[in-house]
């Protein structure tokens, strides 16, 4: 765990210095909400449509973070230095997934209020306690897939293409489950009950892909 802690602290310090990921992810989300507002020609959204717009936007913003996740390791030799250390290589996966998860949470703290102001009809405050577990489970799934795909793509020259091409189909179940779970919370007449089965789907997805990623990540770092 001390290795994971050292890697996470290093990545957070780099992000604080460079501000390359979180601000760009947030600005992208904000721009997309504005585009939806004018593109749909609607002042407010609710239900399925609001839920879909929110999750598609957050997912595309996450792709920006995935693209940047391993850049410092690749361009500044972090991979080589890490591979020479006598530590468990899965620590790098756990640390990077935790960092991407943290970036997503940070973006959502700013982007969801912006979404509520710009597009959402019903107030999200009433639904907030039920929205939180959906956000956290969906973020975990996106972070797991994003870390795996980011590590795969960084070894190639076409990183910017590989990340969306591979990650978007893989996180489709997350968008479906999170969209279905969130839609009743954004209902026009006020938040309805959270459908528990979609939370279950998100939890199962995180578990299966988390274990799969731990099993294969080592091979992605091999020559």
């Amino acid at each position, binding site marked *: 765990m001390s290795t994971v802690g050292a890697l996470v602290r*290093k990545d957070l310090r780099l992000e604080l210095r460079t501000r390359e990921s979180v601000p760009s992810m947030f600005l992208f989300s904000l721009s997309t909400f504005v585009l939806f507002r004018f593109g749909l020609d609607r002042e407010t959204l609710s239900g399925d449509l609001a839920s879909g717009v929110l999750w598609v936007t957050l997912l595309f913003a996450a792709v920006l973070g995935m693209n940047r996740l391993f850049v410092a390791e690749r361009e500044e*030799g972090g991979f080589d230095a890490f591979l020479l250390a006598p*530590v468990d290589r899965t620590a790098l996966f756990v640390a990077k997934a935790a960092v991407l998860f943290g970036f997503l949470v940070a973006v959502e703290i700013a982007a969801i209020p912006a979404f509520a102001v710009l597009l959402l009809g019903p107030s999200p405050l009433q639904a907030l306690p039920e929205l939180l577990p959906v956000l956290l489970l969906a973020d975990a799934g996106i972070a797991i897939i994003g870390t795996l795909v980011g590590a795969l793509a960084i070894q190639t020259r076409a990183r910017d293409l590989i990340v969306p091409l591979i990650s978007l189909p893989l996180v489709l179940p997350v968008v479906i489950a999170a969209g279905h779970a969130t839609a009743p919370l954004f209902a026009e007449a006020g938040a309805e009950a959270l459908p528990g089965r979609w939370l279950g789907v998100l939890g199962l997805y995180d578990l299966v892909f988390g274990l799969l990623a731990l099993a294969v990540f080592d091979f992605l770092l091999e020559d």
Partner: protein
Amino acid sequence: MAPAIELEDVGRAYGERTALAGVTLALEPGRTLAVFGANGAGKTTLLRILATLLKPHAGRARVLGRDLPEDGWAVRGRIGLLAHDPLLYRELSARENLRFHARLHGVEEARVEALLDQVGLLARGDEPVRTLSRGMAQRVAICRCSLHEPELLLLDEPLANLDPGAAEAVAPLIGRDAGPARVVISHDVAHGLDEADVVLGLRKGRAAIVAARGDVTEADVRGLYAA
């Protein structure tokens, strides 16, 4: 004691291109192997195989008594690699970089301060690496590769960008008398030969010279660079 390095017919290819072929040599602990060769001769490939970062595609490689790549995990923490790139995060300070690597290698942070002092960077240890001169960044990289007191040092042009004073300051860490076995890539033929116990000359990935220092002349090595 097992040799620090034993290579038998080691080879490596990148796709169709052979980068290294048929390299056979041995290096005893505490000795220095000087590696010479023109650009693209396979020097860096050899270094990365020894560092466990590349797998050999042919032959048998043993480092610090362990077979590669199978036992690579057992020797990683015992190797210090000074590559062409410094392997430092440019936005972090020298001190932050070294503390990060100290944690990965389980080294006390007090050693970071001692090393910064030794290479004359104690006062500039909090400045981002991107603001340091190349020579200073090279000194930090030398601290990084010797932080965990490795048994084998793999050095790619270790004195590049260093002024004579800096070269003297880093000598106790990576010089001939530092203690560990060393593999040194150098384009400074005279200096490289001065430091060598064993000489490897590579030409187009093949070992054109493998000999004890006493059996090689400067002219032999300079011949490697002839067109």
